[in-house]
């Protein structure tokens, strides 16, 4: 009950009215067009099977594009849902799922890692990527440049290799599934 000891108890959101999401129907390629209007070139990957827009960013324009998306005037993409590493055999890719609470639009951002498995971290824009990027680093070995605390999270610290890579082999006879 010590109010003075409690930094998170500042009455920032006291007694405000609830904000209600207003779903908007947006045309295909909405966010890609928006980024293009901002002068950021993105590769448009169309929609996936669930109708979410997918874009691919390069390492250079990832941060400005993310910044622009977060401050989109109509549907600010403020909620980062997950970061999925994907092993494409040729290279590895991180897939960011972001959502706008206000317009409840989803967007999928793909950023490919380079040959040294380096990719830009979006921590500066969405701090929520913290644990998610650590997980992708842990399981895929994608090194996020600019992440403040990139350590293993799920596997033990002494673990060797990155288990979710397709070429990962664990030579333990008990793990028969690796041989299938």
């Amino acid at each position, binding site marked *: *009950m*010590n*109010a003075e*000891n*409690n*930094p*998170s*108890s*500042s009455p*920032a*959101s*006291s*007694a*405000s*009215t*609830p*904000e*209600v*999401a207003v*779903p908007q129907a947006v045309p295909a390629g909405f966010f890609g067009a928006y980024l293009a209007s901002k002068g950021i070139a993105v590769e448009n990957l169309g929609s*996936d*099977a*669930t109708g*979410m827009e*997918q874009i691919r960013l390069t390492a250079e324009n990832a941060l400005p594009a993310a910044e622009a998306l977060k401050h989109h005037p109509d549907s600010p993409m*403020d*909620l*980062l*849902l*997950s970061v*999925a590493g*994907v*092993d494409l055999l040729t290279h590895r890719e991180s*897939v960011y*799922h972001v*959502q706008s*609470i206000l317009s*409840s639009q*989803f967007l*999928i951002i793909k950023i490919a890692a380079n040959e040294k498995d380096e990719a830009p971290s979006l921590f500066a824009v*969405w*701090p*929520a990527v*913290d*644990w*998610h990027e650590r*997980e992708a680093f842990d*399981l895929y070995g994608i090194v996020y440049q600019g992440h403040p605390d990139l350590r293993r*999270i*799920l*596997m*033990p610290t002494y673990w060797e290799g990155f*288990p*979710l890579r*397709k070429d990962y082999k664990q030579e333990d006879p008990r793990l028969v*599934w*690796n041989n*299938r």
Partner: protein
Amino acid sequence: MMMMSTPSSTLTPPDVKPMQGVSVEKGFDTNDLVVNIGPQHPSTHGVLRLITTLNGEVVKDMEPVIGYLHRSKEKMAESRSLFQYQPTIDRVEYLSSFYDHLAFVNCVEKIAGLGVPKRVEYIRMITLELNRITSHLLWFGTFLLDLGASTPFFWAFRDREEVFTLFEKLTGARMMYNYYRFGGVNADLPSGWLNEVRKFIDDFPRRLDEYEAVATKNPIVLDRTIGQGILTKETCLQFGVTGPALRAAGYAADLRKTNPYSCYNEVEFEVPVATEADTYARYVVRVQEMRESLKIIRQCIDNIPGGDGGELGLLKAKVDEATKAKKKDPTIEVPAWNSDWDMFGKKINLLTYKPPAGEASVFVESPRGVLGCYMVTDGTPKAARVKWRGASFSNLSCLPALMKGHMYSDLMAIFGSLDVIMPEVDR
């Protein structure tokens, strides 16, 4: 010299100066106490380890260590066919595993373009909302147990078992259901099942009132929850916190309402929201969500196409027989049948099923927040990549920021109010 190694002497600072006046800070050489809470601890709800630095009883710093329950669910997907993998995803979030299955089968249905009959969607909605009630009941019981009240825990488990008995009659299992199928469900409702559900939802509000009589306005509960662990909108977004915690912070963000899946656009319900963002607000939102779930279930039972399972099964048998006979004798009349009543949109051979190559991301509103499944298929029976987005993973990551400056005994109340379960964090 021997005495120096005894534990009693280690806490004595080497050069204690005699106290001058009343200046406590000069007189005492104080150390922070590092307490290792977990991985086995009554209140960490699984195997979570919290390395906590305490100053007296005030939390100065905290670092969660996770991974003790890591069972490589995502790696398992790459070595099993989709149907073979499906039973194991019950274990991703075992307290509400219908939600895992919903996200998973929805992914496959979206990638393969499988239609789902309306009756199946209603069955799914009934099971989902019942599962939300069981999950919230478990949270309710353990939350109050963390606060120190033991009786509501048993009451909650009593009612939870009642729902589990309903689930057992439907799916054959009490917790690990493996019930949904691509484009349908495993089996139709048993005869009389809907009436039993109706009996439960008629009786449940009375018991919920009993729970609330014990807890909701109890001065000790109020004192321990109000104003504690304030998780503002900004902090929620900073850590990706979703679900009741986000709604308690003043966002009416519920995917059932904003991005309706299944047939949630056909039922009427409210999204409980509070603006106070504290532990009590999260409590209130969850309790209210249970009442809303009852409302949804009641509408689903009233409106489910085909009604109860028993007679519909007999009719289906007649239809099948007549259809078969009609091929030989075209004069036979086939009884009327609505495609809404089907159990499968398109019956697929689970043994050899190969979805086309594609990608899908499905997010559903699980009791703990947004549960997501991201699936990449490559035309083989196995998925190239299945990523689970557990709500607890993000919700847990805000705990250190939330706990700093609070008393140690607030830890359990605040952690309990986030409703984190570890299998979903570690997967």
